[in-house]
């Protein structure tokens, strides 16, 4: 995984919510909330480093923290479609910046079955019905699932997204009640678009080299019409 655009001009972020920072530090170092923790020395200097976000989950986490500050918990559904940055090798299908779609549902007693249900409904709207779910790993979700869809043209199962339930170590320090589960999923915007339109080079889709004729002549995207 590539990361980390560090930001030179201002070296660190001023921290907000000093109590919250303490709780996060404790969770990393000693665990708590039923967890063994990572047992290492959490450094605030690392956390304060400015980077261009590598995924929109960073912003979802901020929104969940705000939800946790509410006097009374209210069930919430959130989504975002926005830009993310990765410092990786560039090639025909990879750029330094692209877009992610992210969905989050927070409610009491949500289960993995609900996540699978929501994903099935979501992807059905995008015209993808033949789905398979694979166990995966994210440091902040457990369980985690990758979603695969069968692509009849390519004649193989293609990964179309990543999902999971946020870990208690993440939610409880935020003040989210312990019977609330938060399910979330994400996918990139560019990859499914390239598959749908048969585009092989991502630079034909985003950036200055996009052919303006293509923009003017491409029909409206109608996902319902096969």
């Amino acid at each position, binding site marked *: *995984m590539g990361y980390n*655009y*560090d*930001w*030179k*001009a*201002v070296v660190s*972020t001023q*921290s*907000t919510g000093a109590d919250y920072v303490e709780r996060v530090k404790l969770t990393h170092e000693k*665990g708590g909330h*039923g967890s*063994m923790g*990572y*047992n*290492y020395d959490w450094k605030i200097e690392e956390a304060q480093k*400015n980077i*261009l976000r590598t995924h929109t989950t960073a912003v979802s986490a901020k929104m969940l923290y705000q939800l946790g500050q509410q006097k009374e918990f209210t*069930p*919430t*559904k959130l989504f975002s479609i926005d*830009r993310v*940055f990765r*410092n990786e090798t560039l090639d025909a299908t990879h750029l*330094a*910046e692209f877009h992610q779609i992210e969905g989050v549902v927070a*409610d009491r*007693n949500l*289960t*993995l*079955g*609900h996540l*699978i*249900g*929501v994903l*099935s*409904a979501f992807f059905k709207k995008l015209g993808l019905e033949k789905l*398979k*779910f*694979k*166990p*995966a*790993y994210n*440091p902040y979700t*457990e*369980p*985690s699932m990758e979603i695969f869809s069968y692509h009849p043209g390519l004649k193989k199962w293609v990964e179309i997204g990543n999902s999971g*339930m946020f*870990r*208690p*170590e993440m939610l409880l320090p935020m003040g989210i009640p312990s019977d609330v589960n938060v399910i979330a999923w994400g996918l990139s915007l560019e990859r499914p678009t390239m598959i749908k339109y048969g585009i092989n080079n991502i630079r034909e889709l*985003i*950036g*200055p*080299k*996009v*052919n*303006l004729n293509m*923009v*003017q002549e491409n029909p409206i995207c109608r996902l319902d019409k096969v």
Partner: protein
Amino acid sequence: MPTITVTRDVLYEKLGRSYTNEEFEDECFDFGIELDDVVEENSVTKFKIDIPANRYDLLCVEGLARSLNVFRQRCGVPKFIVKEATERIVIDESVSCVRPYCVAAILRNIKFTEEVYNSFILLQDKLHQNIGRERSLVSIGTHDLDTIQGPFKYQALPPQDIRFHPLNQSSVMSAPEMFELFRQTYLKPYLQILDGCPVYPLITDANGVVLSLPPIINGEHSKITLNTQNVLIEVTAKDREKCKIVLDTICTMFSEHCADKYTCEAVEIVAMSTGNKSTTPKMAYRTENCSAKQMCMKSGITDLSPGNVADLLTRMHLPSKADGDMVSVEVGPTRHDILHQCDIEEDIAIAYGFNNIPKQIPNLYTIGTEQEVNKLTDSVREEVARAGFTEVLTFSLCSRDDISNSLRIPKAIDKAVLIANPKTFEFQVVRTLLLPGILKTVSCNRKMPLPLKIFEIGDVVLKNEDEETGCKNYRQVCALYCGKTSGFEVVHGLLDRLMMALNEENYSIQQSSDPMFFSGRGADVIHGNKKIGHMGILHPEVLENFDIVLPCSILEIDLGPLV
């Protein structure tokens, strides 16, 4: 995600059967690993398998086959035994400033075939790469115990005082000499871990023979061969927990090749400064007691008895027993990834099969809404498109010149967010204006019929001391007209049209001397006494800098004040 390479036939032999590639892919899928590629190396078929980053016990064919066999109920979960220590390592205070932690273990009467030897090296590589963070946090040294003599010493010495015969080199050299040599090899990236350290870590035996200089290189003297029967494993680290995990992993994976299967021998670790004594490896077992009902609830599984749950967990390498609703789960030294009950819950769901879990839709009502700035963005997008402009989407990272010198506004770089480690000069800064992206698009689309009218709505980033991160995003719209004439009246008309559509009367334009524009043909856009943007005919030098040969007029404004 780490990828391991295993020899297909070795794996199938351990699994007791062979598969077609498709069958094996399916087996992997349900377990949570992925067959990424099948390659031929020297006419031997090898599998490249993607492993979850937290499963150190699946990083070699030994661990992978064992877990799959347990999953398929071909065998039970082995219990690991740690025998009493006969050797010790003394840790000198001098390492505390450079690489403080050291743990060790011994594998007795191990049988190395070429396959096993290669697997042993590969596991160390993977652990170095992943949990070891490219050796910076943890590194491993393995030695033929019969070539060296304990007790062993772990200390740090000035580089010039270190001399030994490094692995695979032809002679004895000093540390500075070997580091010079290593700068030309694959070891170069690891040298910087010791950059600036006045002392280098060193492990020696009772006769002063050097075992290793962690994290760089082992000594030639104690190197492991196919004839080695007793192995000393030493792990040094900056992170105590990860150090333990790495040692546990090597012992649990490779003790299966010892004459006393699944047995390893402890090594006593003595801290010279405090006299504190301990033994490693820890190989800790713990029991978690959990309610079967509660665990299944989170997965949405309703048809499992506590006995079923215990069986499924045992298949996932977590031996369990049910007593009423309570399940006691044994978490051993191969499962350092189990941090919380939710990790155990996931394993139940995996063994049950994610694809067997019934779908449900959350039973909750919420009222949806868009953020104001996004709602406005969509409306403005519609208006500008209706005025005959084509939308583009460009990069938010650009070069320093793109937002300063090339636009004839060199001071503008002061307000920009700089990238500390750009891979190329195209990504040195975050854009402070949408204009450079728009101009590059014009330059790349010369064959378009004229006039060319394009626009973009997106975020730019400027430094802002009041923000937590020291910077802020601003949503801006930039429109451009390029044709045989400058088209100033077109972009001015667009501004007026937009303001009318947004019901804004309180705006004006004031002539400016902005160097970006043709002299006398540039203006600030003012809204309620504040400048919210600019507009004008671009200066010919700007056009030249972006390789554009026809006149252009542009409008760029911040939508924030209009929200």
